[in-house]
């Protein structure tokens, strides 16, 4: 980890990397729970919201909505409010939330407490991805420790606040990471997204005002209060990037917002694997449109990426090298959406399956020249017609691949034709 020494001070990962952070004593010795104590006993909700506003914190789940603004949507006077933690980290290539919980579960518990006392929620549900068995064990242990210390339960930190935290394992559906589908699943129904409005902030879990927040977003809160928003912003503000694929050192990296794609790949992650050339990278999970070599110097922040025709999403950088066939890469992505479509709306349910069938045919050497126009046609039919972002994620990447790597598709089709059908 030679390159890490050259990195700027890490605000989040230092908690994760330190030894023994699953134990409350260790966490408290390092200053843990001071921020939550202040939020519960010293600061008013307005002061906390003020700090979060000043920090510029945006949701880390993918949509990038300003966190403080979301909190302001929660009606103050509502008698029952919930915080729901989205720990259903399922976007391909994304593993920052798991890293945070496994490394320092107390950081999440502290973030939860800050959010709960600020919006006045007495009950918090952590919707945790089913496969995160280790996370669940560690998080439940951390909650128990925090309860023992008087930080969870009635009168936390000796204040008038009461916060209960329930960990709820999901049932293995990508779509449950979509906040309204998550609420459906939490209520015991099939995970399918809900019509908005009403938004969860107005009528969410059990039709009560609900703050749905990603794990990483909540983990930023103790850091913001601990360092103060100014210092936090000076650090970038920091973002956790999950870098995976054809790099030397895949992993979670903390870097300032706006770091270049080149820096992430070639400095943080150690560059491409020996003898391989960079070909493409998804900057924000499979849902984002991939970038190519000409885009390497794009800044990894929401605005710059939007200008580049893609998005920061969950900041999951999946790197593809020159050994990969883009038709296969796209086929894999489309299969993922086909398998994870919830089945609620027609274009996503039928369109992803149809596109996957066409890809399968092309990969088996039975492609037709007109299939490329057909793929574009199906993509056009799905664009703007799907119920939720899952289905809408498919056309942009597909269309970009058809534009930028059309030769690879054509080669596949030509080879298939040459071998006879």
């Amino acid at each position, binding site marked *: 980890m030679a390159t890490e020494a050259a990195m700027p001070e890490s605000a989040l990962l230092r908690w994760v990397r330190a030894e023994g952070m699953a134990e409350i004593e260790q966490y408290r010795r390092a200053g843990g729970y001071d921020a939550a104590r202040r939020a519960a006993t010293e600061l008013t909700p307005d002061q906390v919201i003020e700090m979060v506003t000043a920090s510029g914190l945006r949701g880390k789940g993918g949509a990038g909505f300003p966190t403080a603004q979301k909190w302001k949507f929660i009606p103050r006077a509502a008698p029952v409010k919930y915080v729901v933690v989205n720990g259903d980290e399922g976007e391909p290539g994304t593993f920052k939330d798991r890293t945070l919980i496994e490394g320092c579960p107390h950081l999440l518990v502290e973030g939860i407490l800050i959010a709960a006392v600020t919006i006045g929620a007495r009950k918090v549900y952590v919707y945790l991805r089913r496969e995160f068995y280790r996370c669940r064990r560690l998080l439940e242990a951390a909650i128990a420790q925090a309860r023992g210390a008087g930080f969870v339960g009635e009168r936390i930190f000796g204040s008038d606040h009461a916060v209960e935290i329930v960990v709820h394992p999901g049932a293995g559906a990508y*779509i449950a990471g979509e906040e309204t589908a998550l609420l459906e699943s939490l209520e015991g129904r099939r995970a399918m997204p809900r019509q908005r409005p009403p938004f969860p902030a107005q009528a969410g879990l059990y039709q009560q005002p609900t703050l749905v927040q990603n794990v990483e977003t909540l983990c930023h809160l103790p850091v913001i209060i601990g360092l103060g928003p100014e210092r936090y912003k000076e650090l970038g503000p920091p973002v956790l990037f999950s870098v995976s694929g054809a790099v030397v050192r895949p992993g979670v990296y903390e870097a300032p917002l706006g770091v270049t794609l080149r820096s992430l790949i070639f400095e943080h992650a150690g560059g491409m694997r020996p003898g391989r050339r960079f070909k493409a990278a998804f900057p924000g999970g499979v849902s984002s449109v991939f970038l190519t070599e000409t885009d390497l110097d794009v800044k990894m922040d929401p605005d710059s990426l939007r200008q580049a025709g893609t998005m920061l999403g969950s900041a999951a950088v999946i790197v593809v090298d020159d050994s990969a066939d883009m038709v296969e890469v796209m086929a894999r992505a489309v299969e993922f959406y086909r398998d994870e479509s919830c089945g609620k*709306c027609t274009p996503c349910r039928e369109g992803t399956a*149809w596109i996957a069938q066409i890809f399968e*045919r092309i990969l088996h050497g039975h492609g037709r020249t007109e299939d490329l126009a057909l793929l574009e046609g199906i993509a056009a*039919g799905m664009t703007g017609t799907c119920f939720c972002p899952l289905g809408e994620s498919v056309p942009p990447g597909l269309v970009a691949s058809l534009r930028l790597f059309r030769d690879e598709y054509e080669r596949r089709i030509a080879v298939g034709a040459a071998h006879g059908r």
Partner: protein
Amino acid sequence: MAAEAPRAAVTLVIDGREVTVPKGMTVYQAARSTGIDIPIFCYHDRMPPLGACRMCLVEVHKMPKLQTACTLEASEGMVVSTTSPAVRAAQESILELLLINHPLDCPICDKGGECPLQDQAFRYGPGRSRFIEVKRDRAKPIALGPVLVLDRERCILCWRCVRFGEIIAGDDALKGFERGFASEVGTPRALTVESKFIGNAISICPVGALTSRTYRFKARPWDIEPVASTCAHCGVGCSIWLDVRGGEILRTRAREEPEVNDVWLCDRGFLGHGYVAAEDRLTNPLVRWEGRLQEASWDEALGLVADRLRASRERGPGRVAFLGGRRLTNEDASAAAGFFRDLVGTPHLDHRVDSPPDGASLGVSWGLRSSLDELGRGDVFVLVGCDITEEYPVVWLRIKAAIDRGARLVIVHAKRLEVRRHAHCELLDRQDRIAPLVAALAAAGAATPPESGDVAGLAAPPAESVDLAAAAATIASGERVHVLLGRFAMDGPDGPDLLRSADALARRVNGTLHIARGQGNDLGAQRFGLLPGEGGMDAPGILRGAAAGAFDLLYVAGSDPATAVTDGAAWQSARRGVGFVVVHEAFLSATALAADVVLPVLVLPEKDGTVTNLEGRTLTLRAAVKGPGQARADREIFDLLSARMRFVLGPGTAARIEPDGLAISGAGAHSGDVREGTAPFLIVAVADRLFTQGSMTGRCRGLSDLAGTAHCLIHPADAARAGVTDLGLVELATEHASVVVQARVSDVTLPGQVIVHRGYDGVPVHALVRWSPVPVGVEIRPVAPPGGEPQ
């Protein structure tokens, strides 16, 4: 209503047309209100919008994306296009996607000709498909129950059927399984579908995915003549279409009637037409000659009946009695009442054939004391011994809708009802202890459990889940409380006490007490005078009188007392004690078999006329098909008899008795004495069921399958003690009789109580009990060895 504030209006432009609609309406509704069609699949106007099928996409000026018209609220100044190029392209895309995996088997599909997918593909579809892959291949059709058949290839996953069960019926009969392109509709745990409303799911399916075994491949919509009529099975009086082809009713569908059934129907109504075309309908009069019922001409049969009536009149007045009315039209009932009351000259008339003398049924007029619409606006519902989905299913849909708006349901019963998961409180106790339970509930602010002193010291288990105070508080919290008193409670012991308590309970909260009693056209029979006149005997009295030789002639129409009388022995001795029995019947029922003259009659779907529903509403019947052979309408038979006896039957001679006001008579007021002594360890309670095998229902395909075999419900604790296994055959033996039925081990019933369902012809459960004393103890013995093959 008067206090309702005028709703704000919004004006928008749809396809260049300016529309003003109330605020809160969706763009889809606004378009429809001005005659603009927007295609839909998943949206159904009785359920909240879902936005799943994406067929109703429209373009809205200044909105970047197309919007689903079904979910988008119309707002002021909105400019909407339903025909722009972008909208047309989206419609073509959605239809292409819906059709790529659809089998396109329209030529053999029941839905063909009345299929929204077919119609919209024609109107909005792309015309040709670009799909060359292999279509989704699923085993089909699959039976989800005796009636419901699913074709997963035709299904377009609009979720309507699933949401009907979740939102309208509240039974979660069908659910979505798997994910994405593998999604499919199915039943929880892959069991047989459990619903009393599945016909509605079939009806609202926008494709041929859900079909009914009774109608599959029977007809094409364009070959069918729909006849607007009324269902007269349970007494709610749902408006229906009887779909007729070639002189046979092939299908029953709900006909929209907002005041009664809205657009819904229960499965008894949905499947309840098959008996009309049964092969064993009576087609000729039968007369008992030389001890045998033999075919006779109408002339012979009517001559004989007229002679007997004349002879009886010569012996003195009041020596003829009439029983029945449930299956008559209002006109038939009026004619019967006029004929017997005014011309034959007897006060002994009663339609309440199935009422025991000690219960509450004879002490009160039957029916609802408000309209169904008003009932649906209640905020607290108390079901006292009323198994609403087994007895009046469509009424439940109104209660369910009210619960969704915040109303509360309190159940007082001896059975864990299907609707209990929607209940706020549930008070459970054995049938013989419901009356004291209601009494305790009626005592305002009563927080103590019901006094059970008279059964103290018995091994009988104590009341379960009794939270009387909570129930009383819930009831007291209501502003529009509706108490529905059902047959199960009314026919139990201490009927008059129960009635007074229920009345007191309703009065205390300024609520309404409904007598949820009567099936078919019982309310019409009540209204048009088929009740005891001055000095007349009620139904149990007539039977006792007949047994004692008080009558020369017993006349039965629109009823089957041999199976309906709740004390089987009482009917037997009545039959033995009366010289001559005349029966109007469509089938050779148990009563007909015991008759001296059987006159073949038309059934309700063969008659023009009216019936009266539970709320007293007059509803129209229209003859959908002709009757078989020489069968005649009941009214016509009374006309013919009048003529033959040189009577003139004038119109409107029958006394009308309106069911308003709660006149509690002193009938059966000797309660109390019957409950002395020890209550038996295990009692038998007879309950109603929606799906039965009676003389009509048993002849309806689908319905009799749903009814299954005659059975009893026994609590697991009692089953274990008696060595009874689930689904094994058992003998139920009381001191009066024994019957063999299937045992269903279930905690739907309570410990110490075996529930037997009536309505299975051929299984005389009414022989098990006597009118008094009640409750009746029962012994239960396995017939087949445990694990052995039943039957």
